[in-house]
C-alpha cells in the first residue's frame, strides 16, 4: 500500500489544528509546493502562547487521542470522537484558495475565473487540463485545511487587569475569526479559555459570557477549563469539550459534502481558467467531473465516519471511472491511463476498507477479486496485456494491499490469538454456494499469494529479451517506442530497470519474494501453522543468496523436522538437499556429513547424478582439522538399522546369555559399501560394554543366505586404557563392511555378572575416513514392536515379548549339589534309617558351607542325628511337633569339585508315615564373603510297615483237671512255673490255639529272627503262651508277599473259681526281623515290629462241647473220639448224646446216653470208631442236646478234626501208612 501516493489511501479523520500552546509534537506545516504557498492565507494570534502546565496537559491529552492510527474498523465504540491533531503555536498558513495564472500563459479575453490550485482547471495544477484527481487534494483536507481550529487562551485572574485583558482576548479571537473568514475556508473556530481558578464564579461567568458574545462565538465552540486537581479531571473536561467540537467538525465536512453535491448537480463541466494548448488539448468531460465529485463525496463521508455513505460514493465513482465514458476513452499511451488505473485502485482500496469496516469480509474478498478481474480485462483490452512482469507486479501488489488492509483493520475475528485461519462468511453474503477463497483468510495467506505473483513477475522479467533490457539512451528509438507498448509499467520500473543487462542493478526480485514470504511466515507462526511456516522457510531459503542465511533458516527446521518423523520423506529430502548445498558452501562439515548419511537411506529418492559415497562427502571442502561428526539416531533417518535381542527374557548371573546383534543397511543400491571400524554396544546394568572391531578377511561366516550373513562371534574380556581410567570391555573381531541391502547378524554369548535388570542402551558406530571421523549412535528404545531372531540366515522368528533388548539377570544359581547316596529303596518301621548325603561343590572355588537338616511331616517327625564325615561328633536334632531340625551344622570349607559327606540317622519310627527331609546348604565363596548362596535339596522319606498279619483263635481241650466246686482246696493246677511265687490261681483253665498268618510287604527279602506273642491279661485271669514251632537260629528268610503261618498255644486260667464273666485279652504279635546282610551292612541290626492283635475274648458262660480224637493202633486201628462237655456256669446241666450209625465207620459207645454235668465242671464220654473207609474224612453224626433247653450244642473240633456247617469231620489216614499221622485241617 506504500506504493500508492501518500495520503491517497489513509483513512480520513477530521483535522484539528490547535493554536496557542507551545509544543514540538506533530506541528502543522504548509506544503512546500510553491503553487500552494503563493497567496497562502495566514491566520495569526497576537497573544503569547500558553506555557502553563494546564495548557500542556490539555494539549498532550488531545495529542494522545489522535485517531490517525486507530485500527480501521468500526468496532471501537468507546471512541467518542476521532481527530487528527496538528499543532501550531501562534500562526498557521492555509493554502491559497485560488491559483495564480502562470506567468507564461497568456490570459484570455474574458475575465479570468481563478480556481483552486488543486483543480484540473488551474494551469498550475498537475492535473491540468484533463487529470481526474490526485493525492494532493486528499492531502489538502487530511493535512492542511483543518475542520476546526482550536485556540487556547488564558483568562486573567488578576481582577485589576480583567477588563483590559478580556478585551485584548476578544480582539485577538475576532482577529483570527476574521482572517479565517477572509480566507474563504469554512473551518470552525473553537476557543478554550483556561483559568487558574478552580471554580467559575459568577463574575468569571459574566466575563466569559462577555467574551463569547463579543466574539460572536457559538456556545458549542466556546469552552472554559478551570484549574483542576488531577489529570483525570482535566481529561474529563477535555473529553467533553472535544466531543462537542467533534460535532462541529462533522458539520464542517457535511458542509463540504453539500458543496460537492451542489457542484455535481449543476450538470455542467466547468471550463478551465485557460483552455489547454498542449497535449490532446482535451479537458475533463462531465463524466470525468462526476468521478471527481463522487470521489470527493466519498472522502468527506469518510471524514464523517459514515462508511456506508462513503462506500456508495466510491462505488459510484469506480463504476463511472471504468465506464465507457471515462477510462475507456483515455488512450493507453497517455500517463492519464495509469493515473486512472491508480485511481481505480485507490477507489477499490477505499471501498474494501469500507467493507471491512462493516465486517463484510466475504464481500470484501469478492470486491477484491472483482477489481482484479475488471482491471485485467481493461489491461488486456486497452493496455499492454496481462502476460508481462508489470501485471504480475500489480497482482502481487494487489494481494499485498489486501494483507496491509487486514493488518490495519485488525479484525477481531482474525487476530492471531483466535487461531482462526479465515472468517466465516457474513450473513449478507450467505448464498448457496461460496468459493473457499471468498472466506477471508488471514494476512499470511495474502502475503503468500503475493509471493506467488512475485515469482511469476521474476519469471516474466527473466524472459525479457536483451534488446529491451538496454537503457533507452543506448537503444534505437524504434525499440524504445515498441517497449512502451509491450510492457505494462504501471507502478513498476521499465524493462531496462526491471532486469537490466547489468544484473546487479535491477530489481532484486529475490529480496521482494523473501520479504513477502517472511511476512507470511511470521503470520503463520503466530497462528501455530508451523508446518506451513516450515514450508515457507523452505521456499524462502531458495531465494537467499547468502548460504549462511540458508543454514540459519533451515538448520533448526532440519534438526527437529516433523516431516521426517511423520514420514513426509519427499519434503524432508527437499529440505536436506537445500541445506546441504548451503552447508557445503559455508563449510559446515557436520551438517554435510550428517545429511549425506541420511540421504543414503533408501526411503529417499535416488538422484542419478549423485555419488552416494560417504567418503566423498567432504571432497571440495576445506577444513582446518579433521572433523569428528556425531550423529544421533533420533535426528536422522539412518539407513543403518540395528537390533539387539536377548534370546531369553531371563538369565542367571555367572552364566552367559545368548544374544543377537543384527545390523542392516538400507542404503540405496549402488551406494559404496560402508565399513564400520568399530561398533560399540553400551548396556545399562551389569553387562560390560561390547566392542566389535572390524577385521578384514575373518574367514567364513557360519551361514550365508542372499543378503543375510550370520556370524558366531567369540568375545573376550580386555581392559583398555581410556581417558578416565581403565575400562574392561568385551571384545570381538568381526567383519563390518556393509553393502546396500545387506544384513549382518552376530550371535554373541554375553556373560552376565550381577543380578538385576540389564538392557542394551545404544549402539555406536565409529567410522574413520581420510577426511573425517564420524560416530553414529543408535539408541534402543523401549518398544512393543516385535523383533526378529535369526534362526538361520534364511529363516527368522518373531520374538513376541516386548523390549527384547533387555534381560532380567537372576541371582547366581547355587552350584553346590546335594546328592543322596544310594541307600535302601524302602524304609521300614521300627528300624533306624541311615542316610548318607554328599555335598558336591561344583563352584570354581572353595566354599565355606553350613548345613541345615529339617524333617517335616504330618505326624510328629522322628528324632535324628547327623554326623559329618571326618568327625566323631553326632549332633541331635531338636524336635517340635511338626518338625525336627538341626541348624547351622558347619561343614567347613569344601574345595572346588570336592565333596563333603553327611550321615543322617533317623530313629526308628513305629508306624508307617511320610516325611520330607530337607537339606539346606548355605555357603559363600572365598572370593565373595558377602554373598550367601543357598542350595536346598528335599528328599521324600516314606516309612512303611514291613509286615502285616491276621489271627485266628481256636479252642483246645485243656488237659489239666478243673478244680471242683465241691472240693475247692484240692485243686493244685500249676499254670506256670514263673507264677509260683505269685498268687496261685484257682479258677478254671481253658486252652486255645492262636494261629497267626503274617506276610512281608517289603520289597526285598527279610530275615525273620523270632516270633512271639505278648499277652496282656486282665488281673482276673492268668495266661501263658508257647510257640509251637521254633524258628531256626539264623532266622527264616521271608520273601515278599508270601504268607507265613505260625501258631501259639494259649492257656488261660481264671484266678478265682467264682468269676464268670468273659475275659478279653490284649495280644501283640512281635516279629523280630532284620534286613538281609549286604556288603555295606554285613551284620544288619535286628528290628522288632509289634503288630497288635484284635482283642481275644475267652471264658464264655455257655457250656462248650469239645470233640477230640486220638488214634489207637493196637490191637485194631481205631479212632478214639472223646466228647468233653464243659460247664462253666453255676447250673446243673443235663445233656443228651445221640450217635447215629454210619456206613463210614463202626463205633463202640452208647448210642444214646444222658450226661449230667455239675456246675463248674466237665465231663467226657468216649466213642471208639473203626473206620470203614480210608484216606477220607468221616462224619460222625453225634448230636449233643441240652435236655433242659432242648437245644442242640455244636461240637467244637480240636486237633485232627475239621468242622463245617453240618458238624465235625475226622480224618482217616490211608491204610498203607503204618504210622498214624495227625493232620490238622481247618
Amino acid at each position, binding site marked *: 500500500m506504500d506504493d500508492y501516493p501518500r495520503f491517497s489511501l489513509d483513512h480520513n479523520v477530521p483535522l484539528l489544528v490547535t493554536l496557542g500552546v507551545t509544543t514540538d509534537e506533530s506541528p502543522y506545516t504548509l506544503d512546500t509546493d510553491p503553487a500552494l504557498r503563493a497567496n497562502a492565507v495566514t491566520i495569526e494570534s497576537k497573544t503569547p502562547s500558553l506555557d502553563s502546565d494546564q495548557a500542556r496537559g490539555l494539549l498532550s491529552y488531545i495529542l494522545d487521542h489522535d485517531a490517525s492510527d486507530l485500527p480501521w474498523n468500526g468496532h471501537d465504540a468507546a471512541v467518542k470522537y476521532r481527530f487528527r491533531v496538528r499543532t501550531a503555536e501562534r500562526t498557521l498558513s492555509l493554502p491559497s484558495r485560488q491559483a495564480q495564472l502562470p506567468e507564461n500563459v497568456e490570459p484570455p479575453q474574458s475575465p479570468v475565473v481563478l480556481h483552486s490550485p488543486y483543480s484540473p482547471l488551474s494551469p498550475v495544477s498537475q492535473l491540468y487540463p484533463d487529470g481526474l484527481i490526485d493525492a494532493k487534494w486528499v492531502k489538502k483536507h487530511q493535512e492542511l485545511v483543518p475542520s476546526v481550529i482550536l485556540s487556547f487562551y488564558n483568562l486573567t485572574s488578576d481582577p485589576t487587569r480583567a477588563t483590559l485583558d478580556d478585551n485584548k482576548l476578544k480582539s485577538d479571537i475576532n482577529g483570527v475569526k476574521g482572517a479565517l473568514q477572509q480566507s474563504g475556508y469554512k473551518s470552525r473556530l473553537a476557543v478554550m479559555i483556561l483559568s487558574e481558578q478552580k471554580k467559575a464564579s459568577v463574575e468569571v461567568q459574566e466575563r466569559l459570557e462577555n467574551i463569547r458574545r463579543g466574539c460572536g462565538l457559538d456556545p458549542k465552540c466556546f469552552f472554559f477549563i478551570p484549574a483542576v486537581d488531577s489529570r483525570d479531571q482535566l481529561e474529563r473536561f477535555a473529553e467533553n469539550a472535544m466531543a462537542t467540537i467533534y460535532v462541529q467538525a462533522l458539520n464542517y465536512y457535511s458542509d463540504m459534502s453539500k458543496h460537492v453535491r451542489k457542484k455535481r448537480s449543476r450538470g455542467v463541466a466547468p471550463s478551465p481558467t485557460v483552455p489547454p494548448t498542449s497535449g490532446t488539448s482535451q479537458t475533463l468531460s462531465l463524466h470525468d467531473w462526476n468521478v471527481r465529485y463522487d470521489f470527493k463525496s466519498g472522502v468527506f463521508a469518510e471524514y464523517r465516519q459514515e462508511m456506508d455513505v462513503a462506500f456508495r460514493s466510491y462505488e459510484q465513482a469506480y463504476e463511472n471511472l471504468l465506464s465507457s465514458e471515462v477510462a475507456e476513452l483515455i488512450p493507453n499511451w497517455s500517463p492519464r491511463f495509469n493515473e486512472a488505473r491508480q485511481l481505480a485502485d485507490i477507489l477499490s482500496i477505499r471501498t474494501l476498507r469500507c467493507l471491512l469496516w462493516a465486517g463484510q469480509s466475504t464481500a470484501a474478498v469478492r470486491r477484491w*477479486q472483482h477489481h482484479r478481474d475488471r482491471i485485467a480485462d481493461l489491461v488486456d483490452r486497452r493496455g499492454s496485456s496481462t502476460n508481462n512482469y508489470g501485471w504480475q507486479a500489480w497482482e502481487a501488489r494487489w494481494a499485498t494491499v489486501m494483507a496491509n488492509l487486514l493488518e490495519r483493520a485488525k479484525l477481531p475475528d482474525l487476530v492471531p490469538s*483466535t*487461531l*482462526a*485461519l*479465515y472468517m466465516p462468511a457474513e450473513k449478507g453474503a450467505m*448464498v*448457496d*454456494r*461460496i*468459493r*473457499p*477463497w*471468498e*472466506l477471508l*483468510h488471514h494476512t499470511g*495467506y495474502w502475503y*503468500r*499469494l503475493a509471493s*506467488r505473483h512475485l515469482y511469476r513477475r521474476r519469471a516474466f522479467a527473466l524472459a525479457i529479451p536483451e534488446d529491451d533490457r538496454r537503457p533507452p539512451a543506448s537503444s534505437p528509438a524504434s525499440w524504445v517506442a515498441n517497449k512502451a507498448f509491450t510492457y505494462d509499467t504501471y507502478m513498476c520500473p521499465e524493462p531496462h530497470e526491471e532486469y537490466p543487462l547489468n544484473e546487479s542493478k535491477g530489481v532484486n526480485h529475490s529480496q521482494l519474494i523473501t520479504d513477502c514470504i517472511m511476512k507470511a511466515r511470521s503470520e*503463520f507462526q503466530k*497462528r*501455530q*501453522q*508451523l*508446518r*506451513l511456516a516450515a*514450508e515457507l522457510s*523452505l521456499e524462502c531459503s531458495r531465494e537467499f543468496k547468502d548460504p549462511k542465511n540458508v543454514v540459519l533458516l533451515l538448520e533448526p527446521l532440519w534438526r527437529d523436522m*516433523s*516431516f521426517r*518423523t*511423520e*514420514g*513426509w520423506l*519427499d*519434503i524432508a529430502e*527437499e529440505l536436506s538437499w537445500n541445506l546441504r548445498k548451503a552447508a557445503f558452501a559455508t563449510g559446515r562439515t557436520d551438517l554435510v556429513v550428517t545429511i549425506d548419511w541420511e540421504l543414503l537411506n533408501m526411503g529417499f529418492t535416488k538422484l542419478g547424478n549423485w555419488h552416494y559415497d560417504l567418503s566423498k562427502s567432504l571432497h571440495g571442502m576445506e577444513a582446518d582439522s579433521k572433523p569428528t561428526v556425531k550423529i544421533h539416531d533420533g535426528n536422522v533417518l539412518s539407513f543403518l538399522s540395528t537390533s539387539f535381542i536377548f534370546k531369553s527374557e531371563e538369565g542367571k548371573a555367572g552364566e552367559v546369555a545368548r544374544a543377537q546383534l543384527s545390523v542392516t543397511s538400507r542404503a540405496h543400491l549402488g551406494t559404496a559399501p560402508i565399513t564400520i571400524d568399530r561398533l560399540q554396544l553400551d548396556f545399562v546394568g551389569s553387562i560390560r560394554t561390547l566392542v566389535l572391531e572390524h577385521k578384514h578377511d575373518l574367514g567364513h561366516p557360519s551361514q550365508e543366505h542372499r543378503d543375510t550373513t550370520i556370524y558366531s562371534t567369540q568375545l573376550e574380556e580386555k581392559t583398555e586404557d581410556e581417558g578416565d581410567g581403565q575400562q574392561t570391555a568385551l571384545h570381538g573381531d568381526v567383519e563390518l563392511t556393509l553393502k546396500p541391502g545387506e544384513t549382518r547378524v552376530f550371535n554373541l554369548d554375553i556373560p552376565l555378572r550381577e543380578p538385576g535388570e540389564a538392557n542394551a542402551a545404544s549402539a555406536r558406530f565409529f567410522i574413520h575416513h581420510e577426511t573425517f571421523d564420524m560416530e553414529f549412535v543408535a539408541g534402543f*528404545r523401549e*518398544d*512393543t*514392536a516385535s523383533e526378529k531372531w535369526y534362526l538361520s540366515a534364511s529363516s527368522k522368528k518373531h520374538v513376541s515379548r516386548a523390549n527384547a533388548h533387555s534381560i532380567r539377570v537372576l541371582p547366581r544359581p547355587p552350584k553346590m549339589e546335594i546328592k543322596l547316596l544310594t541307600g535302601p529303596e524302602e524304609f521300614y518301621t521300627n528300624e533306624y534309617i541311615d542316610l548318607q548325603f554328599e555335598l558336591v561343590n561344583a563352584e570354581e572355588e572353595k566354599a565355606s558351607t553350613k548345613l541345615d537338616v529339617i524333617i517335616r511331616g504330618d505326624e510328629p517327625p522322628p528324632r535324628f542325628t547327623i554326623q559329618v564325615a571326618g568327625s566323631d561328633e553326632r549332633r541331635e536334632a531338636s524336635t517340635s511337633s511338626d518338625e525336627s531340625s538341626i541348624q547351622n551344622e558347619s561343614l567347613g570349607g569344601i574345595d572346588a569339585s570336592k565333596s563333603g559327606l553327611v550321615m543322617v540317622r533317623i530313629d526308628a519310627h513305629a508306624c508307617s508315615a511320610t516325611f520330607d527331609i530337607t537339606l539346606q546348604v548355605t555357603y559363600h565363596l572365598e572370593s565373595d564373603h558377602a554373598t550367601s548362596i543357598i542350595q536346598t535339596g528335599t528328599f521324600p522319606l516314606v516309612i512303611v510297615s514291613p509286615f502285616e498279619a491276621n489271627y485266628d483263635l481256636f479252642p483246645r481241650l485243656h488237659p489239666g483237671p478243673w478244680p471242683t466246686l465241691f472240693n475247692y482246696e484240692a485243686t493244685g493246677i500249676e499254670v506256670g512255673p514263673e507264677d509260683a511265687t505269685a498268687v496261685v490261681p484257682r479258677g478254671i483253665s481253658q486252652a486255645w490255639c492262636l494261629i497267626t498268618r503274617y506276610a512281608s510287604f517289603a520289597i526285598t527279602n527279610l530275615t525273620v529272627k523270632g516270633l512271639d506273642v505278648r499277652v496282656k491279661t486282665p488281673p482276673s485271669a492268668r495266661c501263658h503262651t508257647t510257640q509251637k514251632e521254633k524258628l531256626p537260629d539264623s532266622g527264616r528268610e521271608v520273601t515278599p508277599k508270601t504268607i507265613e503261618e505260625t501258631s501259639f498255644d494259649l492257656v488261660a486260667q481264671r484266678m478265682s473259681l467264682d468269676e464268670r464273666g468273659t475275659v478279653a485279652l490284649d495280644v501283640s504279635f512281635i516279629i523280630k526281623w532284620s534286613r538281609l546282610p549286604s556288603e555295606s551292612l554285613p551284620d544288619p541290626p535286628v528290628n522288632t515290629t509289634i503288630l497288635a492283635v484284635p482283642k481275644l475274648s475267652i471264658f464264655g458262660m455257655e457250656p462248650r462241647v469239645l470233640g477230640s480224637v486220638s488214634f489207637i493202633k493196637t490191637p485194631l486201628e481205631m479212632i478214639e473220639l472223646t466228647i468233653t462237655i464243659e460247664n462253666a456256669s453255676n447250673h446243673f446241666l443235663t445233656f443228651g448224646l445221640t450217635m447215629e450209625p454210619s456206613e463210614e465207620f463202626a463205633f463202640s459207645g452208647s448210642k444214646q446216653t444222658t450226661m449230667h454235668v455239675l456246675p463248674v465242671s466237665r465231663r467226657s464220654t468216649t466213642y471208639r470208631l473203626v473206620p470203614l473207609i480210608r484216606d477220607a474224612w468221616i462224619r460222625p453224626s453225634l448230636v449233643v442236646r441240652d435236655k433242659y433247653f432242648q437245644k442242640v450244642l455244636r461240637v467244637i473240633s480240636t486237633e485232627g478234626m475239621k468242622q463245617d456247617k453240618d458238624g465235625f469231620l475226622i480224618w482217616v489216614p490211608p491204610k498203607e501208612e503204618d504210622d498214624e499221622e495227625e493232620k490238622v485241617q481247618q
Partner: protein
Amino acid sequence: MATAIPSIACLGVIGRNNNPLHITIFPSHDPATNTSRQPVRTPLQFSLLLSSCLDVFDLRLRSTTGPVSGDLGLLHAVDERLAAYGYETNTGVRFIVVVDMRGRRADGRLLAERVGKGAAGAAAVGLREGEMKPVFKAMQTAYIKLLQNPFYDPDEHSPPNGVGGKKITSRTFAEDMKRIGESWIPGVNAL
C-alpha cells in the same frame, strides 16, 4: 473462467501419526492448452499442502473442546484455486480433499447427466456447504474396505509408538481413490 468448474486435485489419507498413508494427485484442466494432463502442482507441493493441513487439524483440536472428528469442512484455502477440506475418523485417520476450483472444463452435457440441469451455472460459482460429504463417505467406505482385508495391519501403518508408518500399498484402495477423485463433480450426492 466461467467454463471451469471445481474438481478434485488431490486426495490424501493421513495416518494417526500424521504420516501420509496415501496420496493421489489428479490432473487439472489447463485453459491454455484446453487439456487435462498436468496436475496444478508438483507432488512435492501437494505433499507440503497436505502437511500444512495437519496444522489446521491441530488448530481445530485446540480451539474446540472435546474430540474433533467427522467432517471438519473447509480447512483452508491456499489461494484462489486450491482449497483443502478435511475429515477425521474416530480412529484418528484423516482424509483431506484438495479441490481445484478451476480444475475441470465445464461440460454442460456431463453436468446435466450427473446432477441435473441448471447445475452447470451454479457449479461455477462456488461450493455448497457439505459438498465434500459424498467424497469423504466414499473415502471412508474405501478405507473400511481396506481395513477388512486381514493382511492389512493398521498398527503397521500407524504404529502405536507414534512415529511414522508405512504407506498403503493396496491397489484396490488406490483405484478407489482414483475413481472417487475422477468422478466427483459439484452437486453429486453419492460416489
